[in-house]
């Protein structure tokens, strides 16, 4: 149980690095959905925690939303926008992966310094959540394609979800579901915005949006 739990967290960490290093938008969406599926299984595998319908519900709803709803929404807006890949990122892919590795090392350090009020479920939970949040933020900053930034936002939310797993004993069901609802609405709005941007401007490159023109 504990081993599978840790293994999933490590796979999440690897997926973060792959996301930082990939340029194809379809691949990025697919990996992000895989990432979502991985973390949605985590609440069911919590070591030394009895089986619980609350956790089961959280797991199943997260799996449905992050594994299937988001990818299909994003794929749809991708098809509308008609772009295949990020061509000129603000920071290159090798640099991004390097930054991801540095972030992982830093998160392991911060996790030892961070005093959480609850007992730790696994030593890996905090580092993985911090590095996932970082990877998401990095994608938002270092990519020009709006769709990449949406994926970065999702990745950040995944990190927060993993952080929530550390608090799984105490966190109410309502809070978790509230966050998820917010994210669904956000992705929905972003999907519509993306569609309109690509409709208006023939691209979804946010760097060009700052230029004013008729």
């Amino acid at each position: 149980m504990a081993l599978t739990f840790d293994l999933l967290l490590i796979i999440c960490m690897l997926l973060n690095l792959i996301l930082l290093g990939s340029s194809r938008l379809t691949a990025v969406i697919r990996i992000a959905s895989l990432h979502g599926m991985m973390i949605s299984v985590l609440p069911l595998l919590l070591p030394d925690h009895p089986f619980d319908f609350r956790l089961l519900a959280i797991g199943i709803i997260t799996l449905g939303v992050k594994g299937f709803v988001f990818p299909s929404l994003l794929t749809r807006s991708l098809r509308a926008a008609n772009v295949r890949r990020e061509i000129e990122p603000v920071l290159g892919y090798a640099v991004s992966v390097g930054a991801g590795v540095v972030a992982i090392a830093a998160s392991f350090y911060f996790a030892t310094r961070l005093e959480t009020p609850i007992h730790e479920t696994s030593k890996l939970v905090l580092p993985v959540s911090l590095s996932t949040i970082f990877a998401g933020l990095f994608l938002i900053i270092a990519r020009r394609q709006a769709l990449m930034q949406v994926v970065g936002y999702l990745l950040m939310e995944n990190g927060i979800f993993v952080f929530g797993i550390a608090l799984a004993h105490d966190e109410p069901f309502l809070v978790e579901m509230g966050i998820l609802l917010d994210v669904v609405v956000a992705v929905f709005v972003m999907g519509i915005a993306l569609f309109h941007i690509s409709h208006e401007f023939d691209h979804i490159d946010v760097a060009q949006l700052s230029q004013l023109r008729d």
Partner: protein
Amino acid sequence: MIALNGLVTPILALTLAPLLMGVINRVKALVAGRTGPPLLQMYYDLWRLLHKGAVYSETTTWLFRAGPIVSLSTLIVACMLMPMSDSPALFSFSGDMVVFVSLLALGRFAIVLAALDTGSAFEGMGAAREVFFASLAEPAVLLGMAAIAKATVANQTMLLSLSSMNTRVSLELWSNQGVILVFVASALIVVFLAENSRIPVDDPTTHLELTMIHEVIILDHSGPDLAFVLYAACLKLWLLALLIVELVIPDTGNLLLDLAADVGTLFVLAAVVGLVESAMARLRMPKVPQLLVGATTLTVLALVLELRN
């Protein structure tokens, strides 16, 4: 520390290494539906080349003649630092893994100098590529060994050498820290392919200068010099495969069984190389650094995970 039963590695490596090349070529041929060259073709080639005379360009200096000799001798010395199954290395001392890596680097340095000495534009280009990719592959080897050293011999009163790392890789380690071993092993396999200029990085059969890396820097060598270079390449293939096998495959304690398992795994690795070469094309040149950086990333991750324990 000198251990006489450590003669196993050098003897096996010196005799069987060219066979590994034969297995790769045979697997490639079988997948392609051909019969392929005989398994012992590399031995015949070496024998033939040793009986030929060498041609030297008038513009070259002693550096060109020294290249193959230095390269071959560094690899023979590296054989003596490598443990195999239960027998320790002929020489083992604290930090010998660093010496091992730098010996490989010294051999490469000699070959690259020889290539530059010819003054050919193609060889200079190949040398630049060879050194560039090697500089990306080396951190992966060192960091991977550091991760495994931390997992096996840290906080022990043993020497921090390749031999003691090898003896402490056990089934127990696999069940506790299998993730780290998998990470390091996959990174080392990438390095193994890159350093031996096999397919995702370099195509050993191509003779189109623009895409060549390793093959282009030995274009001017002939006769016994070429035999030395080829034999050194075989030894390098054997040694880097052995490095993966020794750091990853646990030993059972039964001498013959372990030896058979290790040699078997070496040939399995060679077959895997053959299958990889049949299944995929060479990566585009700008993609190669990404692959190698990815390998380094895996080892850094392994080291970070290991340091946390």
